[in-house]
């Protein structure tokens, strides 16, 4: 493990008991994990993807994945909030103007700023590369007024990274990305977050309106697609899958500990082939996700270090399928564990291992940017990769 990854792994390991301590509460009340996020802010981890010259840790996507997985074993909602923040940070660090980077990145590294992602919009069903509400130029500033149906941690954000249509006459696929500080916008909560799982992400619908200097445009006007390909999507898919895997792996670890303890449920017979087979298949699902995640992370980090684009069809296919594989197989693993342990340990709240919460949380994975969209995109890209370059 590279030295930086070792160092941040230790930071993450210290935080896991804090996250675990609040996880049930955060889930039951569907509230943002304020205490856990404060603990993360106090560590250096909010700046994991901030380059060192701005006071950050200068971590790569491998470090992101490692930390995300550890935190997720404590609380998946908190880990996801932090991971998505890191995804925004990566895009700002790579595509922000020098002025924005100088002003914002050190504050992020210092734990002052949690950046929320605003990409959802009515009528487009989460499709990332189209936008409806436009940016309106006003001198050297850009005004906007937009509704976002799902904003992870939106009520607790210090800043927002927002997709907007480039201007009023632009086509929907001309998407711009703009950063706004909390005090540069008015934020209106339009509803609650009443979800089966990931309840602590408090992903409420918001209306966000305001005006920012044009220097807060991140990337070229209308050019979000480039930032999406090279930063936003890879950081997102790698981070999400690492979170889901970390949660599933943590659940598996907790379960094995219970099975080895005096509290083993009477229904789980250590001599049973059925029990062994079920454990093996759950483990198999985790191994497959881990292997694929590791391969894709290695390729993507090498490409980014070399300055090679992630645009080629094969790379896009790997990144898309990573998300689908991670979503399906981590849920599959928890499904199998719940079947294995039965109702008392697998379906009731307050059980020794919160398997029912993991089941609810991981059911979201396929829906968190719908697998269907990614599969159609991947199948389309498959026409262009005659070499069939596997990860």
């Amino acid at each position, binding site marked *: 493990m590279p030295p930086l990854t070792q160092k941040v792994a230790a930071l993450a390991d210290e935080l896991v008991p804090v996250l675990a301590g609040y996880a049930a509460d955060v889930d039951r009340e569907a509230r943002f994990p304020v205490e856990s996020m404060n603990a993360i802010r106090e560590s250096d981890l909010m700046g994991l993807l901030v380059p060192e010259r701005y006071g950050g840790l200068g971590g790569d996507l491998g470090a992101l994945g490692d930390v995300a997985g550890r935190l997720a074993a404590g609380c998946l909602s908190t880990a996801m909030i932090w991971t998505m923040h890191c995804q925004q940070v990566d895009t700002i660090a790579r595509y922000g103007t020098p002025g924005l980077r100088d002003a914002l990145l050190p504050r992020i590294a210092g734990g002052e700023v949690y950046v929320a992602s605003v990409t959802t919009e009515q009528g487009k069903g989460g499709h990332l590369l189209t936008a409806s509400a436009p940016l309106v130029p006003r001198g050297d500033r850009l005004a906007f007024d937009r509704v976002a149906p799902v904003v992870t941690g939106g009520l607790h954000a210090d800043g927002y990274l927002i997709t907007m249509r480039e201007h009023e006459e632009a*086509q929907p*696929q001309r998407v711009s990305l703009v950063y706004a500080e909390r005090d540069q916008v008015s934020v209106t909560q339009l509803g609650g977050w009443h979800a089966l799982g990931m309840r602590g992400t408090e992903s409420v619908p918001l209306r966000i309106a305001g005006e920012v200097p044009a220097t807060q445009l991140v990337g070229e006007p209308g050019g979000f697609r480039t930032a999406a390909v090279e930063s936003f999507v890879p950081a997102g898919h790698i981070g999400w899958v690492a979170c889901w895997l970390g949660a599933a792996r943590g659940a598996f670890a907790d379960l094995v500990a219970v099975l080895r303890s005096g509290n083993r449920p009477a229904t789980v017979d250590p001599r049973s082939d059925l029990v062994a087979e079920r454990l093996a298949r759950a483990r198999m699902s985790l191994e497959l996700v881990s292997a694929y995640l590791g391969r894709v992370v290695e390729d993507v980090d090498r490409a980014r270090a070399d300055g090679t684009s992630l*645009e*080629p069809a094969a790379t896009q296919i790997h990144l898309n399928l990573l998300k689908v594989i991670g979503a399906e197989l981590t849920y599959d693993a928890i499904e199998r564990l719940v079947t294995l342990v039965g109702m008392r340990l697998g379906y009731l709240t307050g059980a020794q291992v919160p398997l029912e919460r993991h089941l609810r949380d991981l059911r979201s994975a396929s829906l968190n940017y719908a697998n269907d969209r990614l599969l159609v*995109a991947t199948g*389309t890209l498959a*026409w262009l990769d005659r*070499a069939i370059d596997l990860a």
Partner: protein
Amino acid sequence: MRWDAKFEAVVRANVPVLGAAQPLEPEDSLYDLGLDSMGTIQLLLELEDTFGVTFPDEVLKPETFATPGALWQVVHELDPSLA
């Protein structure tokens, strides 16, 4: 360098945003005219069928489909007998 009329017809059929009366210029952005990844595949297949050519792997990259001019250059290189 202008292009074969059949080429323009195939491109127009695959960029829904371009109006029939609007001109198609070599430097127009096909992406801005509504060409997405599925449209790209359709366009590729139709061009290969129409001109009896096969696009080799090395030209299957975003730059090729960025503008009509870049795309025509590839088609023309595959069959120099075209106008």
